[in-house]
């Protein structure tokens, strides 16, 4: 376990800051961005376009297992990118199985080599790290590979890997340090023997028989692709899957995963993890429903129990930047400003924001435009589309059915829904039981569409276009006037007409 060693702040630093500003009367940079991830890099590059002096600090504290990575943040290194590539690897496995029905001679059983996939993914990620380095250099953004701490509201200091003390001063500072996976510290053995998503994508060897603890999309997506590449995979959930998402859709997602081969331990929570002589991990857990204690052994245990911001070392209290006492995230207003006027926060570190790359990027760009361009446009966080990349994908935009009911009352909304079968599943004899979509609309007036939910192949690609419609205030009649593209799954959205209220069978019949 890596020792978390913090150097006491050298007393010379604050004196040095005062001297720096006393000498020049102004700060070294127009903008300092702390954190080189999706939000930070977008903000820095946009500010540089306005000809401003910009600096970026990026530093990756190695995980407890010792995993570290390059410039680009969570999305590039241990999130969206490697996730989607491994999800694709798993989908290709299913496609190979389907291929037989379509006439291809594929020798069974199929075998997957983790190291080959991992190497391809890791090489691509490293090319992205390099690409970002080149881009920063080309746009004349100064890059420091240091872990920054505030010494005063305009000054950040840190140590380089070589141990050199570096001090940076700036007129404006944007905090975009993101989050890291949480460990269940109350579970004995959790820190010593468990890994997180920080480690999974960088494993050189296959994780083997894996237990993933958590009900988040991180847990389900990882369990999904591990199952897809042929590994014995179990998900342990304490309560509901995909909290915050539409629960009917969440159930369909997990149902599909079960039929796909992922094992689920529902209403269970771990109590301890021990290492066996064979090097396997023995996990003990309690089943809340049955009141029993059970155990099993795994090669890998991965914690996906939430993410938390790492603000301890930033020294936020020193400069008065307020955080939410429960989440630890930085409190911001609609313009991403913190409690200190020239200090801003974007991305996962900011309280109340979606933990998504596109919103961080957009917020970062708009912030730079407001600071250095002539813009006053604020980031619009409404109707942000998203997709869960489980083996059967779930894409959505707008309100969940529960949220719509809560906001408008069930009498004032209409839910149109349909079970459908992707054409490609027919010949392949694939089970389409969970292929389903629903559209939540206001019942009165123009019948505005409040939310759209789609489970099926390529859900992200399907939902993206409809997000524009929702942004423009599309209505149910407008959707019905939209002609579908045939044969696709997406066209079924334009044909939704059976309401939940009617109680009629919502299964789509062929054309």
């Amino acid at each position, binding site marked *: 376990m890596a020792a978390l060693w913090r150097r006491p702040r050298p007393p010379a630093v604050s004196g040095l800051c005062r001297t720096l500003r006393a000498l020049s009367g102004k700060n070294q940079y127009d903008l300092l961005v702390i954190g080189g991830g999706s939000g930070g890099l977008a903000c820095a590059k946009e500010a540089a376009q306005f000809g401003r002096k910009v600096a970026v600090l990026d530093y990756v504290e190695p995980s407890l297992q010792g995993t570290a990575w390059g410039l680009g943040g969570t999305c590039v290194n241990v999130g969206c990118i490697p996730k989607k590539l491994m999800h694709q690897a798993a989908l290709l496995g299913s496609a190979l199985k389907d291929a037989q029905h379509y006439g291809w001679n594929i020798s069974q059983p199929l075998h997957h080599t983790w190291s080959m996939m991992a190497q391809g993914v890791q*090489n691509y990620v490293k090319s992205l790290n*390099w690409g970002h*380095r080149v881009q920063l250099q*080309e746009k004349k953004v100064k890059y420091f590979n240091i872990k920054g701490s505030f010494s005063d509201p305009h000054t950040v200091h840190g140590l380089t890997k070589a141990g050199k003390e570096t001090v940076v001063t700036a007129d404006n500072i944007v905090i975009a340090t993101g989050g890291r996976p949480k460990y269940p510290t109350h579970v004995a053995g959790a820190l010593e023997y468990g890994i997180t998503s920080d480690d999974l994508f960088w494993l050189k060897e296959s994780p083997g028989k894996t237990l993933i603890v958590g009900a988040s999309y991180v847990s389900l997506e990882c369990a999904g692709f591990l199952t897809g590449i042929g590994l014995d995979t179990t998900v342990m959930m304490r309560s509901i899957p995909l909290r915050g998402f539409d629960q009917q859709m969440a159930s369909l997602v997990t149902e599909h995963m079960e039929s796909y081969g992922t094992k689920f331990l529902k209403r269970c929570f771990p109590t301890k993890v021990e290492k066996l002589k064979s090097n396997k991990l023995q996990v003990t857990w309690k089943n809340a429903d049955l009141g029993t204690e059970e155990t099993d052994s795994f090669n890998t245990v991965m914690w996906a129990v939430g993410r938390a911001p790492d603000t301890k070392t930033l020294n936020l209290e020193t400069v008065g930047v307020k955080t939410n006492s429960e989440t630890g995230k930085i409190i911001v207003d609609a313009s991403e400003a913190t409690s200190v006027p020239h200090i801003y926060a974007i991305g996962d570190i900011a309280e109340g924001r979606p933990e998504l790359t596109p919103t961080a990027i957009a917020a970062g760009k708009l912030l730079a435009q407001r600071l250095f361009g002539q813009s006053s446009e604020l980031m619009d966080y409404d109707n942000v589309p998203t997709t869960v990349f489980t083996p059967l994908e779930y894409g959505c935009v707008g309100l969940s059915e529960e949220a719509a009911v809560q906001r408008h009352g069930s009498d004032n909304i209409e839910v149109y829904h349909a079970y459908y079968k992707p054409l490609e599943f027919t010949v392949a004899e694939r089970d389409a039981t969970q292929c389903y979509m629903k559209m939540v609309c206001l019942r009165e007036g123009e019948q505005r569409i409040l939310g759209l939910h789609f489970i099926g192949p390529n859900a992200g690609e399907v939902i993206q276009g409809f997000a524009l419609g929702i942004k423009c205030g599309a209505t149910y009649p407008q959707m019905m006037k939209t002609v579908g593209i045939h044969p696709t799954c997406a066209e079924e959205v334009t044909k939704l007409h059976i309401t939940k209220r009617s109680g009629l069978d919502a299964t789509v019949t062929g054309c």
Partner: protein
Amino acid sequence: MGWEERQVRGYPEFVRAAQSYHGRPIFALFCGDKDAEGRSWCPDCVTAEPVVRKELHNLPDESVFIYCLVGDRAYWKDPNNEFRKNLKLTGVPTLLKYGTPQKLVEEECFKAELVRMLFTED
């Protein structure tokens, strides 16, 4: 021990050279062939070479700099030549750190700071 330079021509010679230095950091600059007067058919290579050479003193100790002439213009234009197929080169000049995704292509090689970054960063 500082760094050393090795000059090669053509793909097989490049591969042999890279293999012989296995275990050491290898940087390679790929350029179009030079005529009897020492001028390359590739004008960007003519621009890039002095820029790269000026930064060679930044190479880490123990590293090798392979200067590789890829062939004549016709060979290079062939979309199936071994450099394109096996090393995935897309243009000349290309300056790369062998065995990593770190590379600079064409006009990127004109920029001293980028060349220096390639030679000195992890």
